[in-house]
């Protein structure tokens, strides 16, 4: 596969390491009432669509950026690639 890196253009996916579902960005609040349940759901339950999937890739043999790649799991077509840091901020994460 070729991942169009937002900064570096098309790169062979072999340079990347895969993590999975981009929801892993949404780490729960440790002090929440139901923190145990929320952490369980966060870590273990996954969207597993046959179709568009937002997922985390790490450009390990490259610029060390974590990326959020939107990819179709049936055709492997990639429709969007963003820096995970930007996505994380947009989802309300900060410090």
């Amino acid at each position, binding site marked *: 596969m070729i991942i169009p890196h937002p900064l570096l253009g098309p790169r062979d996916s072999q340079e990347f390491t895969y993590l999975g579902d981009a929801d892993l960005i949404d780490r729960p609040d440790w002090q929440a009432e139901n923190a145990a349940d929320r952490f369980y759901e966060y870590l273990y*339950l996954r969207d597993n669509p046959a179709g568009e999937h937002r997922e985390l890739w790490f450009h390990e043999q490259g610029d060390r950026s974590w990326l959020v790649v939107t990819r179709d799991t049936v055709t492997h077509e990639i429709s969007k690639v963003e820096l995970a840091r930007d996505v994380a901020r947009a989802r309300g994460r900060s410090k």
Partner: protein
Amino acid sequence: MRYSGFKVLKEALTGHKGWQPAWRDPAPKAHYDFVVVGGGGHGLATAHYLAKVFGRSSVAVLEKGWIGGGNVGRNTTIIRSNYLLDGNEPFYEFSMKLWEGLEQDFNFNAMVSQRGVLNLCHTDAQRDAFRRRGNAMRLNGVDAELLDTEGVRRMAPFLNFDSARFPIKGGLLQPRGGTVRHDAVAWGYARGADSRGVDIIQNCEVTGFRIENGKCLGVDTTRGFIGAGKVGVAVAGSSGRVMAMAGINRLPIESHVLQAFVSEGLKPLLPGVITYGAGHFYVSQSDKGGLVFGGDIDGYNSYAQRGNLPVVEDVCEGGMSLMPMIGRARLLRMWGGIMDMSMDGSPIIDRTDIDGLYFNGGWCYGGFKATPASGWCFAHLLATDRPHETATAYRFDRFRKGLMIDEKGMGAQPNLH
């Protein structure tokens, strides 16, 4: 119709006129006591044992395409019970025992070939881990032998002992491990089930579950509604897709693609199954002569049933580094199957929160060898509502409770299991 050497002889002399279809092609009935969704190895085995062991004959297996078209038809045919953890080992040994009597059970030669599974180790730490595993197997009454380098050399003198990047320091051998002709497993179970009255319905895709008041009443299919007392889903690879139709959208499972490979036919070379402990490569030789081999999953979510070059190359690098004699053998064909990769690398055979709906999946790439036990245990659960004694750990709630069965110790990262 029973198969036998005599029958083959008779038919040969009379022009093969007497052979009947291996299984019937019935139209679906309006209602069954048990509907098994998925005509792969696990679904067919479930139906076979429901009929044979639990005496239930009002059973249908619904398959959207042709039976045996899922992972049972596209794997590397290995059987073994060399597991480490309590949650797994008795189950896989139960499976191994069923393999050992399978052909007589369903009257079909699946070519169960127990020529040994040898896992190689390349570091002292790996050898320690194999000793622990081998001892765990022995404590469970399972055969295991720990070989030193010389022991490995005697079994497989063609391995790279002289110029290996990672020297072979020994291996864990399960002599009873081996291979099985994979398609024959599906066909054999189909025949076994069919002969006991199970309806095997091909080209019948489930399009929805009819659920009322928290109870599953049956399934909508491309051939109409089929009512069911209980519905068992055994569609590993597509678990996410199918369970979503029942409103269960998030499972502790991701779908990944695993590639496998076969070489051109060669005269006998390999003693059994060999697994490389320093690279991603395992190999056996089929009765036809092809080297059947594979490695890691491609590593990203996929329903595509095909993989990409990096893993092909990675697998062949492992192969060449382990057995440099295969350089001039040619890779004939590569294919991909979709794996239910679970969060701890172990499967799930459990009830769901919906009454009457049962689940069997998350087999990662260990599903083939599990086929008989998976079928038996799922049949047990469907028939009795209690888990089989060897499958009590395969529960959905083990992640919530911290009771993971993590053979590789990789944690909640499915592509590493």
